[in-house]
């Protein structure tokens, strides 16, 4: 991993920590009854979005999932506008019309979190087709979970992407659970990357809690796609710290396994690495932590002080003019 510089690793750290602190705050607010709707938290999976999005620009598209906060932050989403959307305020990314599961910003290349498991796959393929058609050198990345690879959308999207040789990277965040269902009970293979074989595209399985590994692997796949060499599948083995949604205690998880995975926390791993490589001291990391906590607290303040959408505007934006 010699290619990853100190600056990059520190950037990764800041992004991952922003995601974690955003999610911890969302968990706290939800438990206190201050957030409407549902929230699905990304804590534990930060290395995936961070490592992948590090090689993307605003011209590149991503499709996200119901567990989308991490993808949005890694792709450049602002935490204040995101938090405002969680609070259903008019200053939110979707003017309070979408909520946690539908945050999007087309200008940043974010084609939306999605409330339907597996729905992002064909959409990412379409965006990749647009990139190919417009010859604009951009790619699209589709984030999805292990369970979403059981949907028909997965099959149709990977097959079409392969046949049309599209610049799309399918990033499977294998957190081992489809809601409550353990992967061993919802598919008869261990590595989702094996499924790539059926579509004649490269598939690889990596440690999704090692941000440098994710970065290197995704960088290659993205560069391959940019060169017109077609789609690929990256499976990132990871673990979600919380339940499926806030309010789900995750009792179906094996306690020992949960404990082991918590020790493999991608942020702890990165902190260790930064210290071992002498890229940062404890005091510097603390400083970063405080700075990010400040941003998250400011985001909550912004969201809480923002107005609600006006009922007079309820009919706007159903159709484009």
């Amino acid at each position: 991993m010699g290619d990853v510089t100190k600056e990059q690793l520190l950037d990764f750290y800041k992004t991952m920590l922003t995601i974690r602190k955003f999610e911890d705050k969302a968990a706290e607010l939800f438990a206190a009854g201050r957030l409407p709707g549902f929230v699905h938290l990304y804590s534990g999976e930060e290395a995936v979005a961070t490592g992948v999005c590090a090689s993307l620009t605003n011209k590149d598209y991503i499709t996200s999932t119901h567990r989308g906060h991490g993808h949005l932050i890694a792709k450049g989403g602002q935490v204040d506008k995101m938090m405002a959307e969680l609070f259903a305020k008019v200053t939110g990314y979707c003017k309070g019309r979408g909520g946690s599961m539908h945050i999007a910003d087309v200008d940043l290349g974010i084609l939306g979190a999605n409330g339907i498991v597996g729905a992002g796959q064909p959409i990412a393929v379409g965006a990749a087709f647009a990139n190919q058609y417009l010859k604009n050198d951009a790619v699209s990345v589709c984030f999805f979970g292990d369970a979403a690879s059981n949907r028909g959308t997965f099959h149709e999207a990977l097959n079409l992407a392969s046949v049309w040789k599209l610049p799309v990277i399918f990033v499977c965040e294998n957190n081992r659970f489809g809601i409550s269902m353990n992967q061993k009970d919802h598919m008869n293979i261990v590595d989702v990357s094996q499924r790539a074989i059926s579509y004649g595209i490269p598939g690889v399985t990596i440690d999704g809690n090692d941000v440098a590994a994710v970065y290197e692997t995704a960088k290659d796949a993205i560069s391959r796609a940019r060169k017109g060499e077609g789609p690929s599948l990256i499976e990132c083995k990871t673990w979600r710290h919380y339940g499926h949604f806030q309010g789900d205690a995750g009792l179906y998880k094996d306690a020992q396994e949960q404990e082991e995975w918590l020790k493999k926390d991608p942020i702890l791993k990165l902190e260790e690495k930064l210290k071992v490589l002498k890229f940062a001291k404890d005091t510097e990391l603390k400083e970063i932590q405080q700075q990010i906590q400040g941003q998250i607290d400011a985001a909550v303040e912004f969201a809480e002080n923002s107005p609600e959408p006006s009922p007079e505007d309820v009919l706007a934006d159903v159709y484009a003019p």
Partner: protein
Amino acid sequence: MKKMTYAEAIRDGMRVEMQRDANVYIAGEDVGKFGGCFGVTAGLFDEFPGRVLDTPISETAIVGHAVGAAAAGLRPVVEIMFIDFMGVCMDELFNQAAKMRYMFGGKAKVPMVVRTPCGGGMTASAQHSQCIEAWFTHIPGIKTIMPSTPADAKGLMAAAIRDDNPVMYIEHKQLLAMSGEVPEGEYVIPLGKADIKRAGSDVTIVAWSWMVHKALAAAEQLAKEGISAEVVDLRTLVPLDKECILQSVAKTNRLVVVNEAVRTSGFAGEIAAIVVEEGFDLLDAPIVRVTALDIPVPFNAKLEAVYLPNETKIIAAVKSLF
């Protein structure tokens, strides 16, 4: 003006828009060299290299990819070979395409057209004959078009492609070979404008797609019997030209709605409800719906004839109002 078939007019509509706008492309099953299952895209593959794409038999990916491509700046026109196959790709249309703009706070636009043929009378049985337009009219965020003539087919195709929203462009298999005069070059009919296909004073018959022709045949017969029927062709169901319907009813004071779809929860009921709510005082008689029966489309031709609306049923419905 040039004489062409309904299928040729759809093609001409797509061709002119593809010439105007390099971001318009076509994708679907067998739409390329083969020219489409009903021949609608014939010749476009050679005329527009790289812009008419065959897809695998993957309706979900066809409509789903169109959503992503449209959100990313293109104007896809995708073909679903039979409207009956829309069940396979409904999520892509109704949870993704239709809702993106609203859910995203007005920031996205999804300018895509789904072309698909509907309709019965061809002994094509239960999975290749349906009229399910009400599925789409029930989803805010989608526009729904059902042309009945070659000229309308061309003008509405241009409007559908230029529209910045997802549009269901529903063709009728019975009409594909029908020929008529069609304006040449650029020709756009604004969405949401009904057309009075025959003027009359005693009764309004509202219809769309193939049923317009059944209504016209019925009106012809009724005229011989001294009843003057006005035939209103909706052309687009969403947006709907309520004014045209209400103005016609204001003139005739009687309304029959003809819909090839099954009766329950069909769009004919929507028209009846609107006229009752907004034009009750205009009516001198109850509104009558002429629809298909509430059954899957039967294969046997005699059974299918019983299932479908026809001139005789329309004439009987009209006469029941006097």
